[in-house]
Protein backbone atom coordinates (compact mmCIF):
# COMPACT_ATOMS: atom_id res chain seq x y z
CA UNK A 1 0.00 0.00 0.00
CA UNK A 2 1.24 3.42 -0.94
CA UNK A 3 1.80 5.63 2.06
CA UNK A 4 0.96 9.31 1.88
CA UNK A 5 2.54 10.41 5.16
CA UNK A 6 5.37 12.88 4.85
CA UNK A 7 7.60 14.65 7.31
CA UNK A 8 8.50 18.15 6.26
CA UNK A 9 11.17 19.87 8.33
CA UNK A 10 10.18 17.64 11.20
CA UNK A 11 6.45 18.32 10.84
CA UNK A 12 4.50 15.11 10.37
CA UNK A 13 1.69 15.31 7.84
CA UNK A 14 -0.78 12.50 7.21
CA UNK A 15 -0.67 13.46 3.54
CA UNK A 16 1.22 16.09 1.56
CA UNK A 17 -1.79 18.33 0.93
CA UNK A 18 -1.62 21.50 3.01
CA UNK A 19 -4.18 24.28 2.91
CA UNK A 20 -2.50 27.40 1.48
CA UNK A 21 -2.36 30.67 3.35
CA UNK A 22 -5.27 33.03 2.89
CA UNK A 23 -7.74 30.27 2.16
CA UNK A 24 -10.25 29.79 4.99
CA UNK A 25 -7.54 29.52 7.65
CA UNK A 26 -8.90 32.45 9.61
CA UNK A 27 -11.22 30.92 12.24
CA UNK A 28 -11.04 27.85 14.42
CA UNK A 29 -14.30 26.52 13.01
CA UNK A 30 -12.97 26.65 9.49
CA UNK A 31 -9.79 24.87 10.50
CA UNK A 32 -11.81 22.03 11.97
CA UNK A 33 -13.73 21.77 8.73
CA UNK A 34 -10.52 21.67 6.73
CA UNK A 35 -9.12 18.97 9.00
CA UNK A 36 -12.27 16.90 8.50
CA UNK A 37 -12.06 17.43 4.75
CA UNK A 38 -8.79 15.51 4.79
CA UNK A 39 -6.05 18.11 4.61
CA UNK A 40 -2.61 17.05 5.82
CA UNK A 41 -1.94 20.44 7.39
CA UNK A 42 -3.07 24.04 7.43
CA UNK A 43 -1.27 27.29 6.86
CA UNK A 44 -3.19 30.11 8.51
CA UNK A 45 -4.17 33.34 6.84
CA UNK A 46 -1.20 35.70 7.04
CA UNK A 47 -1.35 37.33 10.45
CA UNK A 48 0.06 40.77 11.15
CA UNK A 49 0.80 42.55 14.39
CA UNK A 50 -2.19 44.85 14.11
CA UNK A 51 -5.62 43.90 12.78
CA UNK A 52 -6.19 44.77 9.13
CA UNK A 53 -9.53 45.24 7.40
CA UNK A 54 -8.14 44.55 3.97
CA UNK A 55 -9.23 46.36 0.86
CA UNK A 56 -12.71 47.26 -0.26
CA UNK A 57 -14.62 45.06 -2.65
CA UNK A 58 -14.06 43.98 -5.37
CA UNK A 59 -11.22 41.93 -3.92
CA UNK A 60 -11.59 38.62 -5.78
CA UNK A 61 -12.10 37.75 -9.41
CA UNK A 62 -12.66 34.51 -11.21
CA UNK A 63 -10.94 34.37 -14.60
CA UNK A 64 -10.82 31.86 -17.41
CA UNK A 65 -7.30 30.82 -16.38
CA UNK A 66 -7.40 31.32 -12.62
CA UNK A 67 -8.13 34.03 -10.11
CA UNK A 68 -6.91 37.46 -9.11
CA UNK A 69 -7.27 38.60 -5.53
CA UNK A 70 -6.33 41.68 -3.60
CA UNK A 71 -7.78 40.91 -0.21
CA UNK A 72 -5.25 43.24 1.37
CA UNK A 73 -4.20 40.83 4.11
CA UNK A 74 -7.33 41.24 6.25
CA UNK A 75 -6.75 39.55 9.59
CA UNK A 76 -7.73 40.08 13.20
CA UNK A 77 -4.18 40.73 14.34
CA UNK A 78 -1.82 38.50 16.28
CA UNK A 79 -3.33 38.93 19.76
CA UNK A 80 -6.83 38.08 18.68
CA UNK A 81 -5.72 35.26 16.42
CA UNK A 82 -3.70 33.58 19.15
CA UNK A 83 -6.92 33.37 21.16
CA UNK A 84 -8.78 32.05 18.16
CA UNK A 85 -6.26 29.23 17.78
CA UNK A 86 -6.55 28.40 21.47
CA UNK A 87 -10.19 27.48 20.85
CA UNK A 88 -9.07 24.43 18.92
CA UNK A 89 -9.51 21.21 20.84
CA UNK A 90 -8.81 17.71 19.67
CA UNK A 91 -7.10 19.10 16.68
CA UNK A 92 -4.72 16.66 15.05
CA UNK A 93 -3.18 18.16 11.96
CA UNK A 94 -0.30 20.58 12.17
CA UNK A 95 -0.89 24.29 11.84
CA UNK A 96 1.71 26.48 10.24
CA UNK A 97 1.26 30.14 11.10
CA UNK A 98 1.76 32.53 8.21
CA UNK A 99 3.32 35.77 9.37
CA UNK A 100 3.24 39.11 7.65
CA UNK A 101 4.80 42.42 8.44
CA UNK A 102 7.24 44.95 7.17
CA UNK A 103 9.90 44.99 9.87
CA UNK A 104 11.71 42.21 11.76
CA UNK A 105 10.06 43.51 14.93
CA UNK A 106 6.55 43.04 13.50
CA UNK A 107 7.43 39.52 12.44
CA UNK A 108 8.82 38.51 15.80
CA UNK A 109 5.85 40.07 17.56
CA UNK A 110 3.50 37.84 15.60
CA UNK A 111 5.71 34.77 15.92
CA UNK A 112 5.92 35.22 19.68
CA UNK A 113 2.16 35.54 19.99
CA UNK A 114 1.48 32.49 17.86
CA UNK A 115 4.03 30.30 19.61
CA UNK A 116 1.36 27.94 20.95
CA UNK A 117 1.43 24.16 20.98
CA UNK A 118 -0.82 23.65 17.97
CA UNK A 119 1.42 25.79 15.82
CA UNK A 120 4.10 23.47 14.51
CA UNK A 121 5.87 25.92 12.25
CA UNK A 122 5.95 29.39 10.75
CA UNK A 123 5.69 30.57 7.18
CA UNK A 124 7.14 33.99 6.44
CA UNK A 125 5.02 35.70 3.82
CA UNK A 126 7.69 37.60 1.98
CA UNK A 127 5.84 37.59 -1.27
CA UNK A 128 2.40 39.18 -1.16
CA UNK A 129 2.27 41.06 -4.48
CA UNK A 130 -0.33 43.67 -3.65
CA UNK A 131 0.24 45.02 -0.15
CA UNK A 132 2.96 47.60 -0.12
CA UNK A 133 5.97 46.82 2.10
CA UNK A 134 4.47 43.46 3.12
CA UNK A 135 5.57 41.31 0.26
CA UNK A 136 7.89 41.17 -2.68
CA UNK A 137 9.62 44.31 -1.50
CA UNK A 138 11.05 42.14 1.25
CA UNK A 139 12.45 39.76 -1.32
CA UNK A 140 13.95 42.66 -3.21
CA UNK A 141 15.83 43.77 -0.12
CA UNK A 142 18.14 40.88 0.64
CA UNK A 143 19.35 42.30 3.90
CA UNK A 144 15.85 42.80 5.20
CA UNK A 145 14.88 39.29 4.16
CA UNK A 146 17.83 37.88 6.00
CA UNK A 147 17.06 39.87 9.14
CA UNK A 148 13.43 38.86 9.16
CA UNK A 149 14.26 35.20 8.76
CA UNK A 150 16.88 35.16 11.45
CA UNK A 151 14.74 37.07 13.92
CA UNK A 152 11.75 34.81 13.41
CA UNK A 153 14.04 31.81 13.73
CA UNK A 154 15.48 33.20 16.94
CA UNK A 155 12.06 33.30 18.60
CA UNK A 156 10.53 30.23 16.99
CA UNK A 157 11.45 27.83 19.78
CA UNK A 158 12.97 25.38 17.34
CA UNK A 159 9.79 25.22 15.31
CA UNK A 160 10.68 25.10 11.64
CA UNK A 161 10.50 28.35 9.72
CA UNK A 162 9.57 28.45 6.04
CA UNK A 163 9.96 31.36 3.69
CA UNK A 164 7.35 31.81 0.99
CA UNK A 165 8.90 33.00 -2.24
CA UNK A 166 7.67 34.82 -5.30
CA UNK A 167 8.17 34.12 -8.99
CA UNK A 168 8.40 37.84 -9.56
CA UNK A 169 12.09 37.75 -8.81
CA UNK A 170 14.17 36.28 -11.60
CA UNK A 171 16.85 34.87 -9.34
CA UNK A 172 14.57 33.09 -6.95
CA UNK A 173 17.22 30.48 -6.19
CA UNK A 174 19.50 33.15 -4.79
CA UNK A 175 16.73 34.33 -2.48
CA UNK A 176 16.11 30.78 -1.38
CA UNK A 177 19.77 30.53 -0.56
CA UNK A 178 19.68 33.71 1.50
CA UNK A 179 16.61 32.49 3.36
CA UNK A 180 18.21 29.14 4.12
CA UNK A 181 21.50 30.68 5.14
CA UNK A 182 19.63 33.02 7.45
CA UNK A 183 18.15 30.06 9.24
CA UNK A 184 15.03 29.09 7.33
CA UNK A 185 14.30 25.37 7.44
CA UNK A 186 12.43 25.19 4.18
CA UNK A 187 11.01 27.13 1.28
CA UNK A 188 7.50 27.57 -0.06
CA UNK A 189 6.90 28.56 -3.69
CA UNK A 190 5.04 30.40 -5.01
CA UNK A 191 2.85 33.22 -3.89
CA UNK A 192 0.56 34.91 -6.43
CA UNK A 193 2.00 36.94 -9.29
CA UNK A 194 1.09 40.62 -9.52
CA UNK A 195 -1.62 41.06 -12.12
CA UNK A 196 -4.70 43.10 -12.84
CA UNK A 197 -7.92 42.92 -14.79
CA UNK A 198 -9.70 45.69 -16.66
CA UNK A 199 -13.34 45.70 -17.63
CA UNK A 200 -13.77 47.05 -21.12
CA UNK A 201 -17.34 48.25 -20.56
CA UNK A 202 -16.51 49.92 -17.25
CA UNK A 203 -13.16 51.03 -18.69
CA UNK A 204 -11.68 50.61 -15.23
CA UNK A 205 -9.54 48.19 -13.26
CA UNK A 206 -11.85 45.75 -11.54
CA UNK A 207 -10.14 45.41 -8.17
CA UNK A 208 -10.54 48.35 -5.83
CA UNK A 209 -6.80 48.07 -5.23
CA UNK A 210 -6.15 47.93 -9.02
CA UNK A 211 -3.37 45.38 -8.57
CA UNK A 212 -3.87 41.89 -7.23
CA UNK A 213 -2.26 38.50 -7.27
CA UNK A 214 -2.79 35.89 -9.97
CA UNK A 215 -3.37 32.34 -8.76
CA UNK A 216 -4.82 29.13 -10.13
CA UNK A 217 -3.93 27.17 -13.27
CA UNK A 218 -2.29 30.22 -14.89
CA UNK A 219 0.60 30.04 -12.43
CA UNK A 220 1.06 26.27 -12.14
CA UNK A 221 3.83 25.86 -14.68
CA UNK A 222 5.71 28.81 -13.23
CA UNK A 223 5.43 27.40 -9.70
CA UNK A 224 6.67 24.01 -10.86
CA UNK A 225 9.62 25.65 -12.50
CA UNK A 226 10.53 27.43 -9.28
CA UNK A 227 10.31 24.20 -7.29
CA UNK A 228 12.41 22.42 -9.91
CA UNK A 229 15.04 25.19 -9.82
CA UNK A 230 15.13 25.13 -6.03
CA UNK A 231 15.41 21.34 -5.88
CA UNK A 232 18.32 21.51 -8.32
CA UNK A 233 20.28 23.44 -5.73
CA UNK A 234 18.69 22.37 -2.44
CA UNK A 235 17.66 18.73 -2.91
CA UNK A 236 17.96 18.06 0.81
CA UNK A 237 15.82 20.96 1.96
CA UNK A 238 12.07 20.83 2.54
CA UNK A 239 10.35 22.50 -0.41
CA UNK A 240 6.64 23.11 -0.49
CA UNK A 241 5.00 23.69 -3.85
CA UNK A 242 1.97 25.88 -4.33
CA UNK A 243 0.26 27.40 -7.33
CA UNK A 244 -2.53 26.17 -9.54
CA UNK A 245 -2.98 22.73 -8.06
CA UNK A 246 -6.44 21.50 -9.02
CA UNK A 247 -6.10 17.77 -9.51
CA UNK A 248 -4.01 14.83 -8.41
CA UNK A 249 -1.88 14.98 -11.52
CA UNK A 250 -0.75 18.46 -10.51
CA UNK A 251 0.37 17.18 -7.13
CA UNK A 252 2.38 14.40 -8.74
CA UNK A 253 4.00 16.92 -11.07
CA UNK A 254 5.09 19.09 -8.13
CA UNK A 255 6.50 16.13 -6.23
CA UNK A 256 8.39 14.87 -9.29
CA UNK A 257 9.75 18.43 -9.64
CA UNK A 258 11.08 18.23 -6.09
CA UNK A 259 8.33 19.30 -3.71
CA UNK A 260 8.20 17.59 -0.30
CA UNK A 261 4.57 18.63 0.05
CA UNK A 262 2.14 20.98 -1.66
CA UNK A 263 -0.44 23.58 -0.77
CA UNK A 264 -3.91 23.98 -2.21
CA UNK A 265 -5.33 27.45 -2.54
CA UNK A 266 -7.79 28.86 -4.99
CA UNK A 267 -8.94 25.46 -6.20
CA UNK A 268 -11.23 25.58 -3.16
CA UNK A 269 -13.22 28.26 -5.00
CA UNK A 270 -13.82 25.86 -7.86
CA UNK A 271 -14.15 22.52 -6.15
CA UNK A 272 -14.81 23.17 -2.48
CA UNK A 273 -13.17 21.22 0.33
CA UNK A 274 -13.94 17.82 -1.18
CA UNK A 275 -10.94 18.42 -3.39
CA UNK A 276 -8.65 17.09 -0.65
CA UNK A 277 -10.07 13.60 -0.70
CA UNK A 278 -10.47 13.61 -4.44
CA UNK A 279 -6.77 14.38 -4.87
CA UNK A 280 -5.68 11.92 -2.20
CA UNK A 281 -7.49 9.11 -3.99
CA UNK A 282 -5.85 10.03 -7.27
CA UNK A 283 -2.33 10.30 -5.90
CA UNK A 284 -2.71 6.94 -4.16
CA UNK A 285 -3.94 5.28 -7.31
CA UNK A 286 -1.02 6.72 -9.26
CA UNK A 287 1.51 5.60 -6.67
CA UNK A 288 0.13 2.09 -6.64
CA UNK A 289 0.05 1.87 -10.40
CA UNK A 290 3.60 3.19 -10.70
CA UNK A 291 4.95 1.22 -7.78
CA UNK A 292 5.81 3.98 -5.35
CA UNK A 293 5.62 3.04 -1.70
CA UNK A 294 5.81 6.56 -0.37
CA UNK A 295 6.02 10.19 -1.38
CA UNK A 296 9.73 10.44 -0.66
CA UNK A 297 10.43 7.89 -3.39
CA UNK A 298 8.74 10.11 -5.95
CA UNK A 299 10.27 13.33 -4.85
CA UNK A 300 12.49 15.02 -7.40
CA UNK A 301 12.41 12.11 -9.83
CA UNK A 302 12.04 14.43 -12.80
CA UNK A 303 15.65 15.45 -12.18
CA UNK A 304 17.02 12.01 -13.01
CA UNK A 305 18.59 11.95 -16.43
Amino acid at each position, binding site marked *: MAKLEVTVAGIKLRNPLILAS*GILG*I*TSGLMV*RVERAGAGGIVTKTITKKPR*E*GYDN*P*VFLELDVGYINAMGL*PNPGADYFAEELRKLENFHIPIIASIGGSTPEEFTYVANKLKIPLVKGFEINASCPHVSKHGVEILSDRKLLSEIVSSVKSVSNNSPVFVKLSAMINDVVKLGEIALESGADGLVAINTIRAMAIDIWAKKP*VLSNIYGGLSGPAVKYVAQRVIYELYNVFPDKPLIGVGGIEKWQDVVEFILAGASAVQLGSVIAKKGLTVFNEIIRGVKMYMEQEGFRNIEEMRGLAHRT
Partner: protein
Amino acid sequence: MHRLSVVTRVENLAEGIKSYWLALDSDLNAEPGQFIMVWIPGVGEIPIAVAYEENKKLRLVIARRGKTSNYIHENLVKGDRVFIRGPYGNGYIYSNVRRALLVGGGYGASSLLFLASKLVNRGGKATVILGFRNKSKVILVKDFTEIGADVIVCTDDGSYGIKGLASEVAEEIMDDFDAVYTCGPEIMMTKVVHYALSKGRSVQASLERIIKCASGVCGSCVLEPQGLLVCRDGPVFDGEILIKTEDFGRYWLDKTGRRIDISRLKN
Protein backbone atom coordinates in the same frame (compact mmCIF):
# COMPACT_ATOMS: atom_id res chain seq x y z
CA MET B 1 -14.91 38.76 -14.49
CA HIS B 2 -18.22 40.58 -14.30
CA ARG B 3 -21.08 40.50 -16.74
CA LEU B 4 -22.41 43.68 -18.19
CA SER B 5 -26.06 44.50 -17.58
CA VAL B 6 -28.09 47.59 -18.29
CA VAL B 7 -30.71 49.18 -16.09
CA THR B 8 -34.07 49.09 -17.86
CA ARG B 9 -36.28 50.34 -15.04
CA VAL B 10 -35.95 51.86 -11.59
CA GLU B 11 -38.86 51.77 -9.14
CA ASN B 12 -39.13 53.60 -5.84
CA LEU B 13 -40.56 50.92 -3.62
CA ALA B 14 -40.56 52.87 -0.37
CA GLU B 15 -38.44 55.29 1.58
CA GLY B 16 -34.82 54.20 1.01
CA ILE B 17 -35.71 51.11 -1.02
CA LYS B 18 -35.61 50.89 -4.78
CA SER B 19 -36.05 48.13 -7.26
CA TYR B 20 -33.81 47.80 -10.31
CA TRP B 21 -34.56 45.81 -13.42
CA LEU B 22 -31.48 44.81 -15.37
CA ALA B 23 -31.19 43.46 -18.89
CA LEU B 24 -28.61 40.68 -19.27
CA ASP B 25 -26.87 39.16 -22.25
CA SER B 26 -27.69 35.66 -21.15
CA ASP B 27 -29.61 33.98 -18.36
CA LEU B 28 -28.05 33.59 -14.92
CA ASN B 29 -30.42 30.75 -14.10
CA ALA B 30 -30.46 31.86 -10.51
CA GLU B 31 -32.55 30.08 -7.91
CA PRO B 32 -34.52 31.93 -5.21
CA GLY B 33 -32.22 32.66 -2.30
CA GLN B 34 -29.08 32.91 -4.41
CA PHE B 35 -27.31 36.24 -4.59
CA ILE B 36 -25.11 38.12 -6.99
CA MET B 37 -22.30 40.59 -6.50
CA VAL B 38 -23.13 44.01 -7.90
CA TRP B 39 -20.11 46.07 -8.88
CA ILE B 40 -20.37 49.79 -9.40
CA PRO B 41 -17.00 50.75 -10.92
CA GLY B 42 -15.11 53.21 -8.82
CA VAL B 43 -17.56 52.78 -5.94
CA GLY B 44 -17.82 49.26 -4.57
CA GLU B 45 -19.21 45.78 -4.90
CA ILE B 46 -21.99 44.41 -2.70
CA PRO B 47 -24.00 41.20 -2.40
CA ILE B 48 -27.65 41.47 -3.41
CA ALA B 49 -30.26 38.74 -3.49
CA VAL B 50 -32.01 37.88 -6.74
CA ALA B 51 -35.56 39.24 -6.45
CA TYR B 52 -36.62 37.79 -9.74
CA GLU B 53 -35.08 36.43 -12.91
CA GLU B 54 -36.63 35.43 -16.16
CA ASN B 55 -35.71 35.71 -19.78
CA LYS B 56 -32.51 37.69 -19.34
CA LYS B 57 -34.30 40.12 -17.05
CA LEU B 58 -33.04 40.39 -13.52
CA ARG B 59 -34.71 42.21 -10.67
CA LEU B 60 -32.94 43.49 -7.57
CA VAL B 61 -34.32 45.25 -4.53
CA ILE B 62 -31.75 47.49 -2.93
CA ALA B 63 -31.97 49.29 0.39
CA ARG B 64 -29.99 52.40 1.06
CA ARG B 65 -27.47 51.43 3.67
CA GLY B 66 -24.04 52.87 3.08
CA LYS B 67 -21.42 53.74 0.48
CA THR B 68 -22.37 51.59 -2.47
CA SER B 69 -26.10 51.36 -1.90
CA ASN B 70 -26.29 55.13 -1.42
CA TYR B 71 -24.44 55.65 -4.66
CA ILE B 72 -26.81 53.31 -6.44
CA HIS B 73 -29.85 55.12 -5.10
CA GLU B 74 -28.51 58.52 -5.97
CA ASN B 75 -27.02 57.85 -9.35
CA LEU B 76 -28.28 54.77 -11.08
CA VAL B 77 -30.87 55.47 -13.75
CA LYS B 78 -32.32 53.74 -16.76
CA GLY B 79 -29.63 53.04 -19.38
CA ASP B 80 -26.80 52.86 -16.87
CA ARG B 81 -24.44 49.93 -16.79
CA VAL B 82 -24.27 47.59 -13.84
CA PHE B 83 -21.66 44.87 -13.50
CA ILE B 84 -22.53 41.64 -11.83
CA ARG B 85 -20.98 38.28 -11.02
CA GLY B 86 -22.72 35.17 -9.80
CA PRO B 87 -25.18 33.76 -8.98
CA TYR B 88 -23.59 32.42 -5.82
CA GLY B 89 -24.59 30.21 -2.95
CA ASN B 90 -27.40 27.80 -2.28
CA GLY B 91 -30.97 29.00 -2.48
CA TYR B 92 -34.12 27.78 -0.77
CA ILE B 93 -35.08 24.14 -1.15
CA TYR B 94 -38.72 24.07 -2.17
CA SER B 95 -39.47 21.10 -4.36
CA ASN B 96 -42.52 19.15 -3.15
CA VAL B 97 -43.63 21.91 -0.82
CA ARG B 98 -47.42 22.40 -0.93
CA ARG B 99 -48.21 25.04 1.68
CA ALA B 100 -45.37 27.41 2.41
CA LEU B 101 -45.19 30.19 4.92
CA LEU B 102 -42.80 32.97 4.01
CA VAL B 103 -41.79 35.44 6.69
CA GLY B 104 -39.95 38.52 5.52
CA GLY B 105 -38.69 41.71 7.02
CA GLY B 106 -37.56 44.83 5.18
CA TYR B 107 -35.73 44.13 1.90
CA GLY B 108 -35.63 40.47 2.95
CA ALA B 109 -38.99 40.29 1.20
CA SER B 110 -37.05 40.40 -2.04
CA SER B 111 -35.71 36.83 -2.21
CA LEU B 112 -39.03 35.56 -0.84
CA LEU B 113 -40.82 37.16 -3.77
CA PHE B 114 -38.76 35.07 -6.19
CA LEU B 115 -39.38 32.00 -4.05
CA ALA B 116 -43.15 32.65 -3.90
CA SER B 117 -43.36 32.95 -7.66
CA LYS B 118 -41.60 29.61 -8.12
CA LEU B 119 -43.80 27.96 -5.50
CA VAL B 120 -47.00 29.25 -7.04
CA ASN B 121 -45.86 28.32 -10.55
CA ARG B 122 -45.41 24.75 -9.36
CA GLY B 123 -48.94 24.67 -8.02
CA GLY B 124 -47.99 25.26 -4.40
CA LYS B 125 -49.56 27.75 -2.05
CA ALA B 126 -47.53 30.62 -0.61
CA THR B 127 -48.59 32.79 2.27
CA VAL B 128 -46.25 35.62 3.03
CA ILE B 129 -46.06 37.69 6.18
CA LEU B 130 -44.15 40.90 5.66
CA GLY B 131 -42.98 43.05 8.51
CA PHE B 132 -41.82 46.66 8.30
CA ARG B 133 -41.00 49.47 10.67
CA ASN B 134 -43.83 51.65 9.44
CA LYS B 135 -46.01 52.42 6.45
CA SER B 136 -43.28 54.36 4.66
CA LYS B 137 -41.14 51.23 4.55
CA VAL B 138 -43.71 48.82 3.13
CA ILE B 139 -42.64 47.18 -0.14
CA LEU B 140 -43.64 44.53 -2.65
CA VAL B 141 -47.16 43.90 -1.34
CA LYS B 142 -48.69 44.30 -4.79
CA ASP B 143 -45.97 42.11 -6.35
CA PHE B 144 -46.73 39.24 -3.99
CA THR B 145 -50.46 39.60 -4.60
CA GLU B 146 -50.00 39.67 -8.35
CA ILE B 147 -48.10 36.41 -8.47
CA GLY B 148 -50.87 34.78 -6.46
CA ALA B 149 -49.48 34.70 -2.94
CA ASP B 150 -51.59 35.52 0.13
CA VAL B 151 -50.06 38.55 1.83
CA ILE B 152 -50.25 39.65 5.44
CA VAL B 153 -48.50 42.91 6.25
CA CYS B 154 -47.53 44.09 9.70
CA THR B 155 -45.81 47.23 10.90
CA ASP B 156 -44.17 47.98 14.20
CA ASP B 157 -46.40 51.00 14.73
CA GLY B 158 -49.53 49.70 13.05
CA SER B 159 -49.41 52.40 10.38
CA TYR B 160 -50.10 49.70 7.77
CA GLY B 161 -51.70 46.28 8.21
CA ILE B 162 -51.43 44.50 11.50
CA LYS B 163 -49.58 46.19 14.33
CA GLY B 164 -46.92 43.83 15.50
CA LEU B 165 -43.95 41.76 14.51
CA ALA B 166 -43.97 39.43 11.53
CA SER B 167 -42.50 36.69 13.70
CA GLU B 168 -45.44 36.93 16.09
CA VAL B 169 -48.00 36.73 13.33
CA ALA B 170 -46.09 33.79 11.93
CA GLU B 171 -46.35 31.94 15.21
CA GLU B 172 -50.11 32.31 15.17
CA ILE B 173 -50.66 30.71 11.78
CA MET B 174 -47.67 28.37 11.43
CA ASP B 175 -49.70 25.23 12.10
CA ASP B 176 -51.30 25.50 8.69
CA PHE B 177 -48.05 25.12 6.76
CA ASP B 178 -45.56 22.39 6.02
CA ALA B 179 -42.53 24.56 5.38
CA VAL B 180 -41.37 27.93 6.62
CA TYR B 181 -38.95 30.32 4.89
CA THR B 182 -37.61 33.48 6.37
CA CYS B 183 -35.45 36.36 5.24
CA GLY B 184 -34.97 39.62 7.02
CA PRO B 185 -33.36 41.01 10.16
CA GLU B 186 -31.53 38.23 11.91
CA ILE B 187 -33.29 38.83 15.21
CA MET B 188 -36.61 38.22 13.50
CA MET B 189 -35.28 35.13 11.73
CA THR B 190 -33.96 33.73 15.01
CA LYS B 191 -37.45 33.88 16.47
CA VAL B 192 -39.07 32.32 13.43
CA VAL B 193 -36.53 29.52 13.28
CA HIS B 194 -36.79 28.64 16.95
CA TYR B 195 -40.57 28.67 16.97
CA ALA B 196 -40.83 26.64 13.75
CA LEU B 197 -38.44 23.99 15.04
CA SER B 198 -40.30 23.85 18.34
CA LYS B 199 -43.42 23.07 16.29
CA GLY B 200 -41.61 20.47 14.22
CA ARG B 201 -41.84 22.56 11.07
CA SER B 202 -39.05 22.51 8.51
CA VAL B 203 -37.64 26.01 8.29
CA GLN B 204 -35.00 27.74 6.18
CA ALA B 205 -33.49 31.17 6.70
CA SER B 206 -31.36 33.37 4.48
CA LEU B 207 -28.42 34.97 6.27
CA GLU B 208 -26.12 37.89 5.71
CA ARG B 209 -22.49 38.23 6.64
CA ILE B 210 -19.63 40.23 5.14
CA ILE B 211 -19.17 38.90 1.64
CA LYS B 212 -15.80 39.50 0.03
CA CYS B 213 -14.80 36.72 -2.36
CA ALA B 214 -18.30 35.17 -2.66
CA SER B 215 -16.45 32.02 -3.69
CA GLY B 216 -15.80 30.23 -0.44
CA VAL B 217 -12.11 30.98 -0.06
CA CYS B 218 -11.62 34.06 2.09
CA GLY B 219 -13.59 32.98 5.15
CA SER B 220 -15.02 36.42 5.86
CA CYS B 221 -18.64 35.20 5.79
CA VAL B 222 -18.14 32.35 8.25
CA LEU B 223 -20.59 31.17 10.91
CA GLU B 224 -18.86 29.67 13.91
CA PRO B 225 -18.11 27.22 15.33
CA GLN B 226 -19.07 25.02 12.38
CA GLY B 227 -17.17 27.11 9.89
CA LEU B 228 -20.22 27.43 7.65
CA LEU B 229 -19.79 29.85 4.79
CA VAL B 230 -22.72 32.11 4.03
CA CYS B 231 -21.50 32.67 0.47
CA ARG B 232 -21.17 29.00 -0.32
CA ASP B 233 -22.98 26.76 2.15
CA GLY B 234 -25.70 29.46 2.43
CA PRO B 235 -26.94 32.11 2.29
CA VAL B 236 -29.97 29.89 2.91
CA PHE B 237 -29.50 27.40 5.74
CA ASP B 238 -31.73 24.84 7.28
CA GLY B 239 -33.00 25.85 10.71
CA GLU B 240 -31.72 22.62 12.26
CA ILE B 241 -28.21 23.66 11.37
CA LEU B 242 -28.62 27.27 12.38
CA ILE B 243 -29.74 26.56 15.92
CA LYS B 244 -26.49 24.69 16.49
CA THR B 245 -24.58 27.73 15.29
CA GLU B 246 -23.46 30.04 18.08
CA ASP B 247 -23.21 32.96 15.70
CA PHE B 248 -26.80 32.75 14.49
CA GLY B 249 -28.60 35.79 15.84
CA ARG B 250 -25.55 36.81 17.83
CA TYR B 251 -22.24 37.44 16.06
CA TRP B 252 -20.66 38.57 12.82
CA LEU B 253 -17.05 38.71 11.83
CA ASP B 254 -16.04 42.26 11.12
CA LYS B 255 -13.82 43.00 8.16
CA THR B 256 -10.68 41.99 10.06
CA GLY B 257 -12.15 38.64 11.04
CA ARG B 258 -12.88 39.48 14.68
CA ARG B 259 -16.18 38.26 16.03
CA ILE B 260 -18.39 41.11 17.08
CA ASP B 261 -21.92 41.46 18.35
CA ILE B 262 -24.40 41.37 15.50
CA SER B 263 -25.89 44.69 16.53
CA ARG B 264 -22.60 46.42 15.88
CA LEU B 265 -22.49 45.56 12.19
CA LYS B 266 -26.09 45.74 11.14
CA ASN B 267 -27.05 49.38 11.18
